[in-house]
């Protein structure tokens, strides 16, 4: 199935070409409320989803792949984005290839903080200290509510109308399921629409599909080990 390259002029649906957010940024907006910036899922699941999104960014840029359950660097040239550069450096400096689960857990520890800061650098969110005594600490409030709602809206539109999804959108749709965000983000969609989503995820290239499956399993295990 022909895929549209992310960032290219062709975009999903009828919307004009906009400068596309990076995958983790899109996931960040999807995973938080567009007005209040409150997380839509518990911290661990959110962290795992964002960690997966960061790995996904590297995979879309052909810097890394997943081979037999391990994350392997295939091209060490630093990407343009600062956070991507940091993540790739961390991947390169590990003495041995580690399994996906370990990377998800490790990146997940700091992912929310880092992706929030990246969005802040680009003026898309504003940082406010959490008012009540909360474990999560910082709150990032979207600067523009409509911009924050855009990734969700575009995805829902594309799914409902069964438009062709590019890789980044398909991964985003898959990570939403993996992180347990279906009910909050993809509510009200018909069974067939969700199957269309599942089909798009299932037909991704194997490493990308593996990333999503491993993320889903990691999130599921947080429930079973009572560490949700």
């Amino acid at each position: 199935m022909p895929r549209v390259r992310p960032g290219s002029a062709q975009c999903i649906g009828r919307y004009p070409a906009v400068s596309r957010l990076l995958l983790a940024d899109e996931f960040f907006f999807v995973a938080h409320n567009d007005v209040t910036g409150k997380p839509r899922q518990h911290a661990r699941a959110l962290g795992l989803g964002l960690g997966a999104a960061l790995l996904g960014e590297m995979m879309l840029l052909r810097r890394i792949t997943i081979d037999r359950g391990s994350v392997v660097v295939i091209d060490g040239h630093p990407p343009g984005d600062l956070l991507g550069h940091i993540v790739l450096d961390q991947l390169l400096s590990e003495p041995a290839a580690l399994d996906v689960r370990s990377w998800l857990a490790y990146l997940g520890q700091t992912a929310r903080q880092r992706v929030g800061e990246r969005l802040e650098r680009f003026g898309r969110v504003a940082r406010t200290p959490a008012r009540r005594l909360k474990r999560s600490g910082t709150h990032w409030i979207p600067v523009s509510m409509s911009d924050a709602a855009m990734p969700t809206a575009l995805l829902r539109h594309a799914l409902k109308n069964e438009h062709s999804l590019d890789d980044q959108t398909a991964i985003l749709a898959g990570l939403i399921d993996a992180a347990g965000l279906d009910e909050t983000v993809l509510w009200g969609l018909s069974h067939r629409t969700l199957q269309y989503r599942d089909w798009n995820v299932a037909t991704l290239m194997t490493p990308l599909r593996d990333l999503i499956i491993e993320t889903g399993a990691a999130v599921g295990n947080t429930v079973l080990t009572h560490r949700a």
Partner: protein
Amino acid sequence: MTPTPPPRASVVTAALARDRLGVRAVVFFVMSGIAPLTVVAGAIPTAYAVTGMASIPAAFLVVAILLALFSVGYVAMARNVKNAGAFYAFIARGLGRAVGVGGAAVAVVAYNLLQVALYGAFGPIAASYAADKFGIHAQWWTWSLGAWAVVTVLGIMRVEVTGRILAVLLSMELLVTIALTLEGLRHPAGHHISVASLEPTKLAVHGVGAALAVAILGFVGFEGAAVLTEEARHPRRTVAIATYLSLGLIALVYAGASWAMAVHYGDATVVGVAQEQGPGMVFALGGRFLSSAGQTLYITSLFAAMLAFHSFVGRYMYALGREGVLPRVLSHTSRKGSPKVASAMQSALGFAVIVVYAIEGWNPLVNLFFWLGTTGAFGILLLITVTSIAVVTYFARHNSAESLWHRSVAPVITFVLLVMVTWLVITNYATLLGVPPGSAAARWLPGIYYIAAVVGIAWGLILKGTKPDVYKAIGWGADAAVVNNKPFAHLDPHWASPNTEV
């Protein structure tokens, strides 16, 4: 020859290690699910009363050793198998997936029975507590339904009361239990401390199966440590040490408390006292303050146990829902990560049971708590027995670094002993329930596991034929999708072509 530079340290491994659980955290996790005072004040007096046996303390010691032996193989297999948190997963890996589903069915029945049984203990004590302290008089089932409502709400929201609260309550429970034990020993009947009730040889009487079943009830929950294997700091040692420590601690507490009761009230009369006073006989061991503290903590302990088992059943059904063995709707979670559909189902069952018992007017402490609780424990005994042989067959087929003791000798000895214990329990079931031999209850209560196992195995075989991808993932829980790699059925030919609407 130039020396090779030392390998670079892994930053990721170090960072993840900081988040891992140590022995203390795992022990607390296990103990808070066991809620010791529930057994000490609930099960032990009822056991004395219903079975008429004075050797309850000896039974705890014997079962502790048996479970420690079982843990050798169990923990070893947990180290080698990825994400096998529950007994049925071990059974599936060792004895085949269809048998695994049978094990899952037995487990779901057993843990549900254990959970609803607690409402039968809570109702009476809450009723008498409220009547004594506040002058409020209401039927046992009013209190049970109240507790049910709290458990239901907490189950849908965030189930875990924070670990700190549980840790504090647990510590106080243990302190009070030890204090009551010492008080009981300080005032022995006839000014002579008899160790007769501790002697294992005294168990060799008719009805020993009943005492053993009660002892197993006290230890249910010890298997929880294995669930945390992936989160443990030292994969080879943490879970093993935590399991043995928990078993030792539980054994000391239960054997000690039940022994103190036999010592204080006299070996020959303890049964009579239990039949008259019930849980009160435990609190009467101490002075007014200790007695009051004991009663209050008994109530909180029951709550903690209700929540713990409710949570456990919920997660069990969640795992089965993830695999597709049970309807996938059971794998839906709330924002807090609690399995809300499974939680609601378990709550519905609890409600139905309380209502039935209230309408029929059956005795909550004996017919609900003790009967269903010990039957639940019998189910766990069956699971442990089958798991011990599953450990042997698993290691026979898979290479591992485990020693012969871990993978064969200990599990085989355990299996033989457990089969004997199972047989003893079945043949003494009437004594356990306190009913005449041959009663319907003594046949049907253990019989439900036979039915559950058959239904489970049949369902497993049906899955093998109709849904091989689900069958393949049996026992994998949240990792089911990783294993089954299901090819997606192409529903609509239009999905392949690019949409022209760009």
